[in-house]
């Protein structure tokens, strides 16, 4: 199974992606949305909340599964994708675009450097993909 892994993003071991673009945008990867199947509910923090790298910041539910969303970087939430409340399926359809989850103002810019690049993440996915 081929999964889309854009070259210009950074990736966490928890299958979240990070795009540095003004703030830092966060979402789940194509591999993650594919593993979950039809996504039916996304629970996100509020603007102004703090998130901590590696800690749960929300929940994503598919028909069959519930998993924690784990923050790939620490900082303050400066925007939340409000569309996902009514259209959680955007995560399945466009996980790197309209399915983004939160925008974070990072408290420690160096954390981005601790994430994987596309090549390293592709290897991590290949190991787990069956």
């Amino acid at each position, binding site marked *: *199974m081929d999964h889309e892994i854009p070259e210009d993003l950074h990736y966490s071991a928890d299958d979240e992606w990070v795009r540095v673009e003004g703030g830092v945008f966060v979402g789940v990867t194509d591999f993650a949305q594919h593993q979950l*199947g*039809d996504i*039916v*509910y996304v*629970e996100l923090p509020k603007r102004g909340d703090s998130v901590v790298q590696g800690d749960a910041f929300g*929940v994503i*539910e*598919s*028909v*069959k599964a*519930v998993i924690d969303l784990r923050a790939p970087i620490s900082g303050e939430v400066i925007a939340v994708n409000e569309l996902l*409340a009514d259209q959680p399926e955007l995560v399945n359809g466009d996980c790197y675009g309209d399915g983004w989850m939160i925008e974070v103002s990072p408290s420690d810019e160096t954390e981005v450097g601790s994430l994987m690049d596309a090549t390293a993440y592709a290897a991590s996915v290949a190991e787990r993909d069956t």
Partner: protein
Amino acid sequence: MTAASGPKRTPLYEVHKRLGARMVEFGGYTLPVQYSSIREEHAAVRESAGLFDVSHMGQLALTGPGAISAAERIFSRSVAAIAPGRIRYGMLCNEGGGVVDDVTCYRTAEDSVFWCVNAANIEKDQRWIERHCPDGGQLRNDSDATAMFALQGPASAEVLGKVCPAGVGALRRYRFERLEVAGCSAIVSRTGYTGADGFELYLPGSEAIDVFETLLREGAPLGLRPAGLGARDTLRLEAALPLYGHELDEGTSPLEAGLDRFVDLDAGGFIGADALVRQREAGLERRLVGFELEERGVAREGHAVVEGGRTVGKVTSGAPSPTLGKSIGLAYVSPDLARAGCRFEVVIRERCVRARVVDTPFV
């Protein structure tokens, strides 16, 4: 058919892999949870048809002299009253009235029946029947040799008609016949676990791949697609059909589960009947209800049900209903809340989400 260790495989394991299924373990078997999308497979069953590999289900046959009177002791409905060629859904109950298993009973001949049983309970049921029918009939476990498919949805009869020379239009609900299906001799029953019209097929495992692939090929132009356990679960939930291990277990009575019409208490005589009669007289402590959430969220098994700050029950199953576009579930609650329109809250990750009791089936 069994791997060296770990979960068993059905005869269709390689076919599922080839179709791109994601596999999970269920009831000791490796089975497809979905091929493409639970929602799409669910919609296929509601709108046209879906084909499920349910070979994990068990078949226990009781045959020969004494079989029927022995079966009367362990099945919650009168087996003697089931005419050959007919099927009844019911329970095996323990002495306390709890459910050992919920099963369908096929009356195959004057002196024989078979029960179609839940995968996780095959060995338990076999021991239970052996223990309680020591002299009545010969018990045979056909589970490993038997493949079972469920063909479900409004187009099922048309799909099956294409590969079944004798036709299936005349086969009525809860009846079965032995028919030739895609060149294979199969038991075909008009039954299912989705709330839709449909059929269940029992055939030798050695012929499973041929028949499954022929059905998929012939049915594709009519909208048939393979469907996995994920859709099977959302479909049965919309139909408010209980799933053993969730709504039913050894500590749950069929009366609490609202399955009164599947236990012939007035005929009596089966194991557990006395306990159930006493329970009916004493009144129930809890009842199974269907509910829908009035706010966003998904209720899941184990979530607490609260009302007025008090815990009054527990969710046994929950999911977003693809057909209704609402979040639905089943829960055991105190009897005073077991009426359509009653309100309570479901505690989802420490958040109280408003819910309302609704009539079942949901669709």
